[in-house]
């Protein structure tokens, strides 16, 4: 099905099942521990062996020697694979560094061997016996040191004459902000179980993008994609870390081939933070010029980040092309080569760190203008792409988000003068920030089966990383086929199913359900035809197909055998003619200990405008989870770089702190009523990343309101406040 015209009315609009706060259909399995994650496929694998990785202990250089003799003779060892044993490997098209290093070493804890043994205990012990010497090379590890002299990665995007307009602006801001390297820190480590059957490889894994994985496993191992099957029905969190093939898949496959039996491997937690990807640190310079009326005349956003050779920049400037009005604009990225582990996508790549900076700048600018920060944003709202005014937003309710949120949160009671609200030993403050994330759509396929019991089974390689895919897909099929949700069975995460959008970039929910919609449209036509209905006027409801006086049970259509159809939604030009984006307003109240400068969040509200909300319960969870990650990014999360040795030092969950229960208050989410017919037949948009975009800045602005201290370097830890707090010596 091609989606290239704004959607009119379709069966989804009934909203009998879609749009309802349905409990997760996979809930009973998850709460009882019965859902099977990557490392847990015991049943088909009686002769399972265990893999354990060996990581490089230098950041850059060459392996001079590897002595495997002690490891080889260690108890239980079945096989050891290094780059030498592995032979010539390819590199996945989405990988920057190779997944099995050697002799070249590209980053710290790059995998350089896998040890396979009868038991986990034996594999772990033997891996420690692999003895490696290195020839270390000089590396570059310090973004600040590399920053100066870097030119644009690609040409800067310019609209109008920024420099002139900025110089002439009555009120100006020119500030620099930094965000640190961050770790996804999903709860399930990367894990894979690989089994070969002749030249055919099956990998049970934990991955967000099944078809990408098939392609990149095949490319890495130099085997035909047709010989690779990837299965990943449950994923213990990914946040972008599992978008790509990582070392667990390749080490399991190589280990299994060498051992001649199924091998499973989970990346040990202290290893995976340097072994896998991270969100790269950024330095961002923002310049805003405005008239005294508060109208922005000039806005520039430049971002510096680093990555391994051939890696991409963290595109922190992109939202600044679209979020606010202003005739004269400049945005651009500058990329340093750094020999740290590979930087790559983490939840809302670009916008998450970009808005952490931009939305502090907006708060600062409002103050310089003597404007309320909400009014300043309202004044500079735009309903068209500022770089191309002929191109409207499909739907843009940023102002409504801000207004509704202000009312609900009690914004009017805020004192704009910082440091004035006090509660005992706590300084209180309130902050706001806009949230913005583009709505991406991706081609997505599904297969639907109707059996003689009247059960519809949906099969797609879509993944559920906690987003609720199982549930919204079941809701979509139930709505389309006129069945209660209990009559829908959803099977996900298997490369033998049609290729879907996968989970990433907050495109999954809208795109994957649209694919299921397309397949269900086809199934409706097939059913109608089979039952002798005119498919145009057939009504699917209550397990029946109806037209005029005639009603037949849906199951009847499959009485002669299962009906199986497949379709794919493909997206046309609407995203070119219309800018599709999602919007939010984030409100945060913090309390800062007047003595110790510890910051604790007291209240949080997010108001989101993101198209039709397919399931308010699971969508709300996406948003509160993102808000939680936003608190982490604002107040505690930072991979500490050792710029001498080139690695992230705090590489475990004790050293890299993410929010715990005690950090997070009750969170409130409001979804504005919105349907976006430009987006898909579902009229939905993404929301899982929007919930993160801007939260950090709302926290930062609240800290400023509480203390009068403007911290432009995340995370806002107490050491950045303590010497400036009142009463400090």
């Amino acid at each position, binding site marked *: 099905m091609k989606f290239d015209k704004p959607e009119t009315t379709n069966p989804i609009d009934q909203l009998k099942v879609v749009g309802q706060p349905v409990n997760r259909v996979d809930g009973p399995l998850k709460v009882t521990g019965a859902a099977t994650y990557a490392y847990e496929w015991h049943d088909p694998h009686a002769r399972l062996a265990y893999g354990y990785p060996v990581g490089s202990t230098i950041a850059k250089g060459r392996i001079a020697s590897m002595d495997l003799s002690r490891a080889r003779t260690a108890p239980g060892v079945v096989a050891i694979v290094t780059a030498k044993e592995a032979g010539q490997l390819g590199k996945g098209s989405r990988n920057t560094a190779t997944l099995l290093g050697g002799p070249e070493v590209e980053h710290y804890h790059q995998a350089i061997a896998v040890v396979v043994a009868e038991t986990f205990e034996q594999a772990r012990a033997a891996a420690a016996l692999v003895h490696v010497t290195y020839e270390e090379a000089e590396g570059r590890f310090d973004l600040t040191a590399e920053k100066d002299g870097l030119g644009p990665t690609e040409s800067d995007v310019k609209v109008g004459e920024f420099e002139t307009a900025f110089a002439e602006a009555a009120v100006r801001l020119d500030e620099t902000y930094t965000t640190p390297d961050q770790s996804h820190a999903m709860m399930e480590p990367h894990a894979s179980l690989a089994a070969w059957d002749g030249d055919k490889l099956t990998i049970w894994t934990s991955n967000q993008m099944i078809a990408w994985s098939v392609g990149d496993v095949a490319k890495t191992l130099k085997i035909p994609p047709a010989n690779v099957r990837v299965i990943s029905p449950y994923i213990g969190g990914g946040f972008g870390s599992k978008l790509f093939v990582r070392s667990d898949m390749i080490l399991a496959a190589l280990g299994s081939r060498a051992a001649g039996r199924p091998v499973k491997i989970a990346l040990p937690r202290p290893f995976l933070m340097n072994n896998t990807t991270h969100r790269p640190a950024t330095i961002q310079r923002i310049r805003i010029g405005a008239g005294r009326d508060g109208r922005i005349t000039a806005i520039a956003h430049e971002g510096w980040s680093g990555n391994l050779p051939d890696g991409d920049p963290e595109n922190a400037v992109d939202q600044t092309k679209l979020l606010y009005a202003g005739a004269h604009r400049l945005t651009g990225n500058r990329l340093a080569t750094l020999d740290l582990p590979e930087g790559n996508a983490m939840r809302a790549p670009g916008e998450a760190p970009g808005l952490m900076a931009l939305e502090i700048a907006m708060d600062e600018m409002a103050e310089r203008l003597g404007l309320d920060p909400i009014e300043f944003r309202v004044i500079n709202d735009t309903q068209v792409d500022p770089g191309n005014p002929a191109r409207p937003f499909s739907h843009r309710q940023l102002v409504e988000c801000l207004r509704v949120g202000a009312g609900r949160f009690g914004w009017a009671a805020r004192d704009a003068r910082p440091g004035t609200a006090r509660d005992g030993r706590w300084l209180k403050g309130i902050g706001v920030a806009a949230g913005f994330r583009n709505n991406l759509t991706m081609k997505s396929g599904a297969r639907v089966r109707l059996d003689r019991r009247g059960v519809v089974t949906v099969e797609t390689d879509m993944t559920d990383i906690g987003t609720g895919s199982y549930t919204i897909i079941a809701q979509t099929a139930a709505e389309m086929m006129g069945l209660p949700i209990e009559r829908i069975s959803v099977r996900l995460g298997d490369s033998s199913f049609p290729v879907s959008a996968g989970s990433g970039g907050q495109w999954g929910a809208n795109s994957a359900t649209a694919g299921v919609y397309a397949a269900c449209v086809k199934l409706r036509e097939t059913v109608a035809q089979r039952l002798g209905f005119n498919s145009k006027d057939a009504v699917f409801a209550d397990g029946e197909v109806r037209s005029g006086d005639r009603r037949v049970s849906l199951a009847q259509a499959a009485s002669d055998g299962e009906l199986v159809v497949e379709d794919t939604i493909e997206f046309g030009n609407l995203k070119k003619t219309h800018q599709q984006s999602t919007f939010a307003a984030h409100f945060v109240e913090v309390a800062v200990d007047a003595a*110790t400068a510890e910051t604790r969040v007291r209240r949080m509200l997010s108001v989101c405008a993101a198209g039709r909300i397919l399931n308010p319960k699971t969508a709300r969870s996406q948003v509160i989870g993102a808000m939680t990650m936003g608190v982490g990014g604002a107040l505690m999360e930072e991979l500490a770089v050792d710029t001498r040795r080139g690695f992230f030092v705090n590489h*475990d969950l004790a050293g890299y702190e993410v929010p*715990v229960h005690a950090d997070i208050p009750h969170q409130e989410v409001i979804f504005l009523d919105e349907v976006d017919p430009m987006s898909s037949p579902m009229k939905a948009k993404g929301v899982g990343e929007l919930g993160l975009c801007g939260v950090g800045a709302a926290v930062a602005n609240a800290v400023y309101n509480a203390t009068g201290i403007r911290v432009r370097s995340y995370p806002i830890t*107490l050491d950045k406040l303590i010497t400036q707090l009142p009463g400090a010596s």
Partner: protein
Amino acid sequence: MRAFTYERATSPVQAAAAAAANPDAKFIAGGTNLLDLMKLEIETPAHLIDVNGLGLDTIEATSEGGLRIGALVRNTDLAADERVRRDYGVLSRAILAGASGQLRNRATTAGNLLQRTRCPYFYDTAQPCNKRQPGSGCSAIGGFSRQLGIVGTSEACIATNPSDMAVAMRVLDATVETVKPDATTRRIPVAEFHRLPGDTPQIETVLERGEFITAVTLPAPVGGKHLYRKVRDRASYAFALVSVAAVIQQDGTGRIAVGGVAHKPWRVEAAESELPRGAKVAAERLLAGATPTHENAFKVPLVERTLGSVLDEARS
């Protein structure tokens, strides 16, 4: 984790003798720190002596009016004990500020005193660390040291002791009771129990080979307000940047000890005499000679301000 043999101890003396007989032996009780370190091969015992079956899990009144806490009393039980809550509140508070409910359910009194540092370079076996690998150097100096020590450090080591409980024990003048392989016992004031790193940071306590902790005793209650303030980036389940244990009397005198700043709970009796003059003077005395790194220099004002806040609370 290296292979090891395992036995269950039958008595404290037997445990001590077994440990003395095998130089690569370790006692294991809660295991919450030891197993963590064994998985990383930071600890590599060849033999484990499981002491969990030895009892030593009661809290009894002493004839001096204090309490004798068995070495294997779990952190949860110690913090929840009615007498401790009433008379030694700083101890309950300190324990409850540490770790998580799960960890406190297993961690023991003796084990808590013997926790090893959380210095990230100690935890990465590929990095030089004098504590883990004597003579290899200290990576933390000049490296990522935000969490690390500011007083009593040495050129060999700037690690901190991560225990909250020990800070309270220090302010309460607790005594560690031990038994040696030859069945003799000794009482070690907790003030003398932990060592500063000097040039042998691998030696963290004054315990001798095989010497086994049987109990920790608290002297009779001293009254006063008991406070424990732990300062950290996240609100729970995190090690202290700085912590202050305090027992403050109505007249403003009292005792204070600080955690998160040194290789041992940091108490300077001379600073306590300055308490009535306020936090600034007391903190100056407390941290006299401090040598913070660029990254942890904030701990100096943080100690002063935290202490000031604790004294305010004591007065209120």
